[in-house]
């Protein structure tokens, strides 16, 4: 296929974009009728069941990065690269018991920032907020960029128009419906994603002669099948700790822990992890054989769309278009909602206006959602870096937050000084490792450094934290 050709007619692309855009905004308006209170808007009334709960966790974790970056992992790092990406599901498995603990300790909690502030104090809270907001913006930017890139690759829609349209749709339905709309659309999107990915994987499998493709690939790209490929071995652990950091610290997951019913919250996250586990393999395996199939990858960011288009033709491209649009929507809306909660609750209310009414805070939230959308749009307008570099630059920061969160939930001796130092030193050493050795070491190094400092501070600590202090309502 010539790099200038697109798989779908641009008119078909625009029609799909408009149809799904109208559908999501319409559903947002429908579900938004329920979100009358602040609890409703931010946390869907704290009464989400296991079906919607697991669907929203799974759909949120199937980001555009899963669809777009997994084939890149396969193309660059082979079999180990694909396995490395599946380790991101471990984050959901391990967060399951933590979510139950969070619900128990903070029955009226709102954000992950609340936890850090009450558990460790304001200094740790400030550092944590900085990390969390930086990561959230990197995630948002990488997803909006992915949206623009994929629309351009599949349907020839100009990057700027496609990226703007996706952001606009997500901002609109998050704005009108709050977390009710986010979780409701996530449910539909998760069903579409699962069906679409299974269809794409089956169609790809039926078109690849695995025996021949393997033999050719081993000849031309031997490193992809090398069991001791250094970069892939390191990315296995790096990706796993990056995933832990993303899930454990980010308010996207904490807001779901607060929103899902206490009795089913652990099961919902475990089920989401189980549903998510095979997705990277299904999405990315064909990238291992792109060379032997004669598919020329002209731009690393377009690996997935180019392979799908070549293997599956227009029908496959339509399915992929819909799957990617759903995965983009399910993640961008969640991130917009959760980050606006963090800014409204932790920054505006806790730092500037503690006496603010719920109604006023809700309108502040809507302003923040629009603002976040606008800032993301401005950052994405010039296409900066590739998707992997944008995303993995945030790795050391989130990796350094793993241990303060985990020990903060379970160990009374975990303390503020240890939390602050582990986040700062973990991020700094992780960043050094990013530039000195490569992105595939950054989260791993940050997590290890953070662990050593956390454990050292606990060993020297005389802190004996009272868990009841986390229940702000009782206080």
């Amino acid at each position, binding site marked *: 296929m010539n790099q*200038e050709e697109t798989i779908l007619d641009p008119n078909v692309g625009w029609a799909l974009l408009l149809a799904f855009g109208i559908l999501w905004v319409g559903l947002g308006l429908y579900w938004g009728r329920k979100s009358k209170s602040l609890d409703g808007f931010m946390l869907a009334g704290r009464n989400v069941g296991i079906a919607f709960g697991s669907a929203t966790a799974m759909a949120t974790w199937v980001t555009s990065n899963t669809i777009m970056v997994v084939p890149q992992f396969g193309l660059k790092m082979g079999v180990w690269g694909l396995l490395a990406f599946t380790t991101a599901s471990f984050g959901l498995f391990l967060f399951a018991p933590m979510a139950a603990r969070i619900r128990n300790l903070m029955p009226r909690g709102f954000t992950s920032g609340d936890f850090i502030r009450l558990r460790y104090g304001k200094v740790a809270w400030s550092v944590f907020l900085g990390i969390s907001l930086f990561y959230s913006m990197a995630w948002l930017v990488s997803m909006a960029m992915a949206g623009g890139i994929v629309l351009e690759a599949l349907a020839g829609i100009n990057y700027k128009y496609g990226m703007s349209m996706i952001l606009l749709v997500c901002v609109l339905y998050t704005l009108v419906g709050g977390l009710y709309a986010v979780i409701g659309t996530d449910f539909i999107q998760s069903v579409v994603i699962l069906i679409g990915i299974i269809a794409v994987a089956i169609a790809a499998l039926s078109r690849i002669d695995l025996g021949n493709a393997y033999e050719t690939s081993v000849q031309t790209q*031997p490193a992809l099948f090398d069991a001791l490929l250094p970069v892939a071995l390191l990315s296995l652990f790096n990706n796993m700790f990056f995933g832990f950091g993303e899930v454990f610290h980010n308010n996207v997951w904490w807001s779901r822990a607060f929103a899902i019913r206490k009795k089913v919250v652990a099961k919902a996250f475990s089920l989401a992890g189980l549903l998510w586990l095979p997705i990277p393999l299904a999405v990315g395996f064909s990238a291992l054989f792109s060379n032997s199939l004669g598919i020329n990858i002209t731009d690393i960011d377009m690996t997935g769309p180019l392979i799908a288009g070549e293997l599956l033709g227009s029908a496959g491209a339509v399915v992929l278009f819909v799957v990617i649009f759903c995965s983009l929507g399910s993640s961008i809306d969640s991130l917009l909602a959760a980050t606006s909660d963090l800014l409204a609750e932790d920054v505006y209310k806790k730092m500037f206006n503690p006496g603010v009414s719920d109604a006023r805070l809700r309108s502040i939230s809507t302003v923040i959602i629009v603002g976040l959308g606008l800032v993301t749009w401005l950052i994405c307008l010039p296409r900066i870096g590739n998707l992997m570099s944008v995303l993995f630059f945030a790795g050391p920061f989130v990796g350094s937050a793993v241990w303060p969160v985990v020990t903060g939930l*379970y160990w009374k001796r975990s303390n503020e000084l240890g939390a602050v130092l582990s986040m700062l030193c973990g991020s700094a050493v992780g960043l050094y490792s990013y530039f000195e050795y490569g992105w595939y070491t950054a989260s791993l190094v940050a997590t290890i450094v953070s662990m050593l400092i956390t454990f050292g501070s606990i060993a020297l600590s005389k802190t004996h934290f009272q868990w009841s202090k986390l229940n702000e309502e009782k206080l």
Partner: protein
Amino acid sequence: MNHALIRMRTQFRTVAAFLFVAILQLPIALGEGFLEPEGSSYRTDDGTVPLVWGETERNLSGDRVYEVRRWGLDASGLGQLVYEGEDTASFVSGLGEGDYVFRIRSKAKGDAYPDWGDEGLNVTVDYIDMAIVWPLMGAGALSFVVLIGTIALGRRATEGSESS
């Protein structure tokens, strides 16, 4: 005499036509190279090389065909085909550790390729040292086990209070 003159004239025309075609091909053969990576050598730590050899606008009409091949430094012969077609970029991956030379040539559709030039892109694949990889992996595995242990033991220790 006339016959000899006619033969000479025909031979002269043939030689002139050959020289004309050769001169036209010369800039293409000499000027062929990669726009990216810049320079004559490139070092990678993950076995990948993003090759770009022309602006996308340059070949919009699709009137040129490109051939990219790679050679190991110690190898001669035809080398290994990396790409042949109308695209003006190719992402190469899965290279084992070692040194390679990438070369490119092009032709108008229907014409023959010129000979390979001597110039090429020298690529060195140098993966991160295993002496760094193993300790990092060991520390990662240890951190993973301790993390699971912390959550599992913490869960057991707090189970009573959570069920109440």
